[in-house]
């Protein structure tokens, strides 16, 4: 290999490595400072902790009411996701198979939700009237509603690529429409349902605005709101704030590490069709 070429390769690799480093350092900082004592963590430096303070995690779980918040986050993410993905698959199925003008309009209306923002102020009114404000079931329904548009969009495109003969044959053999959907279509949708599911769980887990507007009772708070309040109370103690944050993002990072392939393909699936 000629020297100019290998120099070029080196420069390119160093730039890519540098960019990766810039992306990761702030996250690394959280992890090391979560294990420091309060004075050690006061500058949120990059040094490793002298004497790892594993007790920090116990402290924040007690003081930040994280056990309840963790349970709530799991409830909202999985409840909202299961509901959203199931209803979206069902809707996408009939909308993709029946191509009348009416069905096209319903489809467009649903996927408009990807772009159109929620009106939080009037939504509060709706939540009050339906007695869903400040309730866990209200949050699950609300989150499901927010995740439906993108899920319909992804699943619709996928169903479009499945041959119609499959479900027509099942139907002609005497399967009810729902049975056809459940036993023929749903199993084939597995890849796109996994992608939708993971993206939706992450979206809801990370979401912060809905609880900020609609949840007053601390007992219903998800992790994000708990972290925000913990930060407000312990702003001067970066070791505890870091420990609190690490517990919030650890599940996200683990899911990302395992399901990277689906996440990255799901993210670009809407934008790039090969």
């Amino acid at each position, binding site marked *: 290999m000629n020297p100019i070429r290998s120099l070029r390769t080196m420069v390119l690799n160093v730039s890519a490595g540098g960019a990766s480093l810039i992306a990761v350092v702030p996250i690394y900082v959280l992890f090391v400072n979560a294990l420091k004592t309060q004075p050690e963590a006061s500058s949120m430096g990059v040094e490793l902790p002298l004497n790892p303070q594993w007790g920090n995690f116990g402290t924040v779980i007690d003081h930040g009411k994280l056990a309840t918040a963790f349970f709530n986050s799991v409830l909202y993410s999985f409840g909202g996701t299961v509901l959203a993905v199931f209803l979206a698959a069902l809707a996408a199925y009939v909308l993709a198979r*029946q191509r009348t003008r009416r069905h096209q309009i319903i489809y467009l209306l649903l996927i408009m939700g990807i772009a159109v923002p929620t009106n939080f102020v009037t939504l509060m009114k709706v939540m009050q009237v339906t007695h869903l404000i400040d309730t866990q079931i209200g949050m699950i329904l609300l989150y499901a509603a927010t995740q439906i548009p993108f899920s319909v969009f992804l699943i619709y495109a996928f169903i479009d690529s499945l041959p119609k003969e499959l*479900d027509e044959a099942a139907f002609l053999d005497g399967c009810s*429409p729902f049975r056809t959907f459940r036993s023929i279509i749903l199993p084939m949708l597995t890849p796109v349902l996994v992608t939708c599911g993971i993206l939706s769980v992450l979206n809801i887990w990370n979401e912060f605005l809905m609880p900020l507007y609609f949840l007053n009772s601390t007992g219903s708070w998800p992790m994000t709101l708990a972290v925000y309040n913990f930060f407000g109370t312990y702003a001067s103690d970066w070791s505890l704030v870091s420990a609190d944050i690490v517990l919030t993002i650890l599940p996200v990072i683990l899911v990302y590490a395992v399901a990277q392939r689906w996440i990255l393909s799901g993210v670009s699936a809407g*934008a790039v069709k090969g």
Partner: protein
Amino acid sequence: MNKKAYPTRFAGGALLLFGIFVLLPSVLGLGLAFTDWNAYSNDINWVGLDNFATVLDPNGDYVSAIQHTILFTIATTILKTGIALGLAILLTDGVKRLAYLFRALIYLPAVLPILVVGIVFKSILDPQSGLLNSTLQLIGLGGLAQQWLTDVGLTFWTVVGVDTWRGVGYIMVILIAGLLAIPREYYEAASIDGAGRLQTFRYITVPLLMPVLAVTTVLNVLYGLRVFDMVFVLTNGQYGTSTVYTMVFDSFTRGLYGVATALSTLFFGVMVLLGFVVIRVMQRGEGN
């Protein structure tokens, strides 16, 4: 056959949830934006265009928030697109080994809660003890150390910078997928015809990537216009960083529901228009 095999009521559940929690509030907004609805009285009275007059008062806080939002959207769109395009080309063309790892790491900030990113950067940007200023001092650039989050002229750009850091990986991943979808033969043909790197970029990469760049631009714009979490956590809308959605929240917490609704509804109109653009762009992407 169609009607029986694919009953439209299957779409009912999705439509019901979407209708109650997304459509209904928007429709209510069209009415309540013209009222004095607030937290301190049970009566709701028609006030005509008063709320819109408040929101669009050229000397008011709302108009400057709208200006910040537009500037934020333009700045983050340009920065994210430019940096993401550079990184995408670097990771598809320049770097071969470890490209997958680099891509995964650069995307990592985008999977974290924005709230968390905001809190971490509050520590990193602390003027006294923060990592950024102390690193600048360490490498002899102490003169560049700033009051990143309180200097009125600078803070807006700090928020733009942090948001770019968080969002660039997302755009990069989409652009990488777009670059990989360009057939290799075009590049081979160009190289046989003796095209240089710049020419190949100008005449092959850019035109063929255009549809994907259109999508990322729309995504960036939609995100920018609705930005809330990042600003809320970093500055709470102070020091010249207020945006439409921090003002909506601000009016909401002050009990001025009518005004907050007017601002939301105004923006809803803008977003519906943009929504049509999105659908057009995405449908074109689907057709290919």
